[in-house]
């Protein structure tokens, strides 16, 4: 059964303290792995798509990496405005356009 697990559920960091969020997945055939950011009261905002093991994508202080079993979202020297819930989702080759979503990691960056 397809499954996506994100850890930790919540993470509190001081401003400038780098860390990583984890997304572990189980799918029969990976079509793609997607990272989104969601601010309170808003819809998720697309960040990255990763398609194959070894691929990396970067955007400002965020870097996403992918292996055959998991993805990491590395946050370097975060700022308070990086506080949000980060969602991971995977597409399975066998499921037409249906993404399997993780529960998210709530990231809080304290000034």
């Amino acid at each position: 059964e397809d499954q996506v697990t994100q850890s930790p559920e919540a993470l509190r960091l001081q401003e400038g303290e780098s860390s990583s969020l984890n997304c572990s997945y189980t799918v029969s055939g990976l079509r793609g792995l997607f990272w989104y950011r969601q601010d309170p009261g808003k819809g998720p905002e697309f960040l990255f798509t990763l398609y194959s093991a070894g691929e990396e994508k970067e955007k400002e202080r965020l870097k996403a990496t992918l292996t055959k079993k998991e993805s990491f979202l590395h946050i370097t020297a975060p700022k308070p405005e990086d506080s949000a819930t980060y969602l991971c989702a995977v597409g399975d080759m066998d499921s037409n356009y249906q993404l399997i979503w993780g529960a998210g990691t709530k990231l809080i960056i304290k000034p």
Partner: protein
Amino acid sequence: DAGITQSPRYKITETGRQVTLMCHQTWSHSYMFWYRQDLGHGLRLIYYSAAADITDKGEVPDGYVVSRSKTENFPLTLESATRSQTSVYFCASSADGYGYTFGSGTRLTVV
């Protein structure tokens, strides 16, 4: 303005009433999706559409009806609202079926 618009932003309705949530996108994206987001369940797909007049069920379609007579509109109707349908509803669109752009959501309360 370009983008994806959901209306209403907030809605309170009574059990048994029919209610329609609207979604409009200006990019002419082929794919459109309806999700609900609940604490403890994350994002769950209700229905999706690959093109005008083509719709398909997602993970939790019971009690909902969709239509897509025009590419830009994808309304979601709750035929007879129940308290279990109290949720935040997000519409999304995509050019390729995966890189979604989400709307701001409709917070629906069924009393």
